[in-house]
């Protein structure tokens, strides 16, 4: 073969030759913030910044894992690929946010055996127990059918897009850069979910029935996304975070537009719960199973190199 690509044609070359630069995808642990100035800006508390980034990073991580469960199970190949891509984007955002949290306050990172090659963001993802996760319960809920998934993705993406747009001018330049990049990605996610919402709403009797049922299921949990915690309020005061309650009108206008386009009435379901949520480490029953599946391999091999 004249065009044999010596760098890529055999995945074993790196293993056999001991040349670390020839490993295949995903086998290295380079810092995703290598060379990025992670100094805490004046007027910002490092531990608060870390706590805030954990919340946003955990939302992305747990939702990415949940959405990835559609891989090989979606109604058709295109949607299989779409949901996997959306999960991948969110996983990338989670990696950056967790790395930012670890750089802002190294004490949030679980301790691992000496010599463990696990980087801080992976230690946060795979070696924290359930109560240490700060994601909203909204993202850990089981997928349900395709209609439930689409409704949940629409409301989540609409909220997250509004949030990331505001964070693009965060007082923390690292968070601002992560958010500005995320805006481009989540724009595609929101459009995808919005289009499927309208398609299901205006499709068959059965698709509409399922969509309306899915909307009722998701709607009662949706208020959690805009219910602020003390961390978010203080992050907003320090100019690097956003009080999610201030996003409500903007997000609502988007949802109203999608509902109207689909000819679907706003559900009259009251929000469930007002007390401490996932943001405070109190999770629903399904979270334990999700974490077990997500973490089991990494925990079995804390010194593993992948």
């Amino acid at each position, binding site marked *: 073969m004249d065009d044999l690509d010596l760098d890529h044609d055999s995945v074993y070359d790196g293993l056999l030759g001991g040349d670390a*630069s020839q490993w295949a*995808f995903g086998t*290295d642990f380079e810092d995703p913030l*290598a060379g990025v100035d992670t100094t805490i800006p004046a007027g910002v508390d490092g531990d608060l910044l870390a706590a805030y980034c954990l919340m946003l990073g955990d939302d992305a991580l747990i939702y990415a894992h949940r959405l990835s469960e559609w891989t090989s199970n979606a109604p058709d190949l*295109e949607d299989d690929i779409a949901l996997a891509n959306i999960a991948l984007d969110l996983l990338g955002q989670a990696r950056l946010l967790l790395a930012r949290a670890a750089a802002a306050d190294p004490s949030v990172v679980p301790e691992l055996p000496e010599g463990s090659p696990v980087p801080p963001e992976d230690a946060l993802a795979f070696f924290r127990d359930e109560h240490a996760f700060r994601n909203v319960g909204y993202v850990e809920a089981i997928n349900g059918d395709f209609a439930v998934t689409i409704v949940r993705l629409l409301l989540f993406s609409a909220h997250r897009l509004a949030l990331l747009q505001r964070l693009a001018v965060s007082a923390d330049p690292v968070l601002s*850069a992560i958010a500005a990049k995320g805006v481009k990605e989540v724009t*595609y996610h929101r459009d995808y979910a919005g*289009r499927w919402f309208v398609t299901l709403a205006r499709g068959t009797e059965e698709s509409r029935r399922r969509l309306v049922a899915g909307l009722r299921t998701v709607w009662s949990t949706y208020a959690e996304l805009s219910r602020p915690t003390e961390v978010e309020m203080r992050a907003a005061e320090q100019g690097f975070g956003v009080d999610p309650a201030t996003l409500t009108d903007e997000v609502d206008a988007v949802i109203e537009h999608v509902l109207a386009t689909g000819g679907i009435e706003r559900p009259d379901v009251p929000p469930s719960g007002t007390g401490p949520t996932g943001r405070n480490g109190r999770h629903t029953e399904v979270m334990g199973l999700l974490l077990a599946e997500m973490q089991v391999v990494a925990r079995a091999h804390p010194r593993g190199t992948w």
Partner: protein
Amino acid sequence: MVTALAGEQSRARKIASTVVDPEMPMLTLVDLGVLRDVTEDGDHVTVTITPTYSGCPAMATMRDDLVHALTDAGYVEIKVRISLSPAWSSDWITERGRRQLRDHGLSAPGPAATGPVQLSLAPIRRAIDCPRCGSDDVRLTSEFGPTACKALYQCSDCLEPFEHVKEI
């Protein structure tokens, strides 16, 4: 410290400029707009790259390939730094890169959207041609493709499916 002057490329930059995208090897990292800066000081080199998508797994390979190429060229200490801001845009793909995409059966991105983010509930309409037969009668099959950066299309004339690099 040697930084490339306008119109003049340092040796390290020339070498870094030969490294290609592992998924779209018809594009160099320069064509893709990922290679932002190369500085060298003796046998030390610092390369700055910008990730395309937050979760793109090809970034790790790009970084490894940069280290590999520069190591082979005799450089001893190679640092690859990440630049997150400004975020990568498909507008950074060079003219040569766009020709290369087309020559290899992929459709190049149009201008990325600017200004306020719009919700679009109708399929995005792009004025693109089939990279194989040139017909403008093409249809979108999915906004998401085999890699984060591509959408899937099919030509209604020659019926060939093809990939379109998305605007971002």
